[in-house]
């Protein structure tokens, strides 16, 4: 069983608009003196609209939980795929990209905090 609580995670992105195939970098900070069980940053897309939701995590960056106790923001990088999709707002559905940070807290009952930040993925130019 896991519960998600109000987040004190701070997420900062170097760029909020990237081209498909680009890396997305940023920083994550989370005030804690006790190292969490797990810290990860995921890049994912999901659809909204008339169709049944589709969702996919395309990249995950694991962060050493010990680093969070040092008190400064930890950098991360995730990779968007060359083949897309791109952010899209259509007639029947939308495609939304986001960065999701998850901190799993120590304890018998797995409690986790999550924070998301939208990002826009556009076509790349050759």
């Amino acid at each position, binding site marked *: 069983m896991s519960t998600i609580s109000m987040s004190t995670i701070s997420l900062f992105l170097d760029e909020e608009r990237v081209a498909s195939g680009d890396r997305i970098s940023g920083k994550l900070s989370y005030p804690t003196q006790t190292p969490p069980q797990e810290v990860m940053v995921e890049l994912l*897309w999901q659809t909204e609209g*008339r169709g049944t939701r589709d969702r*996919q995590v395309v990249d995950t960056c694991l962060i050493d939980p010990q680093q969070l106790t040092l008190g400064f923001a930890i950098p991360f990088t995730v990779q968007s795929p060359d083949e897309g999709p791109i952010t899209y707002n259509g007639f*029947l*559905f939308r495609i939304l990209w986001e960065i999701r940070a998850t901190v799993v807290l120590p304890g018998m009952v797995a409690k986790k905090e999550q924070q998301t930040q939208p990002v826009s993925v556009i076509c790349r130019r050759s």
Partner: protein
Amino acid sequence: MVQQSLPNSSLPQRGPEGFVLTVSQTQRYAGLLIFVIGLIWTAFSAVMLIVFIGEPFGFFSLFPAVFISLFVLVGVLMAGAGLLELWSNLKLHPAELILPKYPLRLGETCSIHYRRRLRRGTFSKPGRVEAQLVCDEWVEYTQGTDKVTKTHSLHEAELPTRTVVTGEQQADYESRIAISSKELPSFLAKHNQIRWRVIVKLTVPGIPQKCQSEFSLQVLPEVLA
């Protein structure tokens, strides 16, 4: 991986001519499937009809019998349509679409070569090949226990019509397709899709069905300079 296997097409095979797309197994055997479903439907409806006709004559057995006759008719039409499709596919090899490059990009123009060969003999009468390049949004969702699909057209371009020459063993069609830089790249998830397709219709006297083939194209999210 975002891209599910492309609907309507097998993955392209690279050969000396270029990238060869063929229609999917589903499209190839659609006729057989419709024929079998039509047969089962007709058989089941016919049994029900015989049961009602066998009932003692009365007002209350007449209307159900008439109603069930409609189901029998639907089954016969379905089986007939499947049979025509099967017959067409028995006369022709599966269609192929050949492209010099694949996948495609936005802002790209590319030649296409469609071909479909007769299994035996040559075309004795002139025929016609019509083609379109289309792009649409497609979604699937569940409504109660039913699966519902909806589409919305994003792009439709008619390509020039060509004649199938008599005396040839295969129908050949060549044209060019253009994908504007302002268009959208493909997106193929399970329930939500942006699909690019080339739809080719071959009409030949002696082959009862208008033979329609759909080829899915992958368009990358890259704009050519």
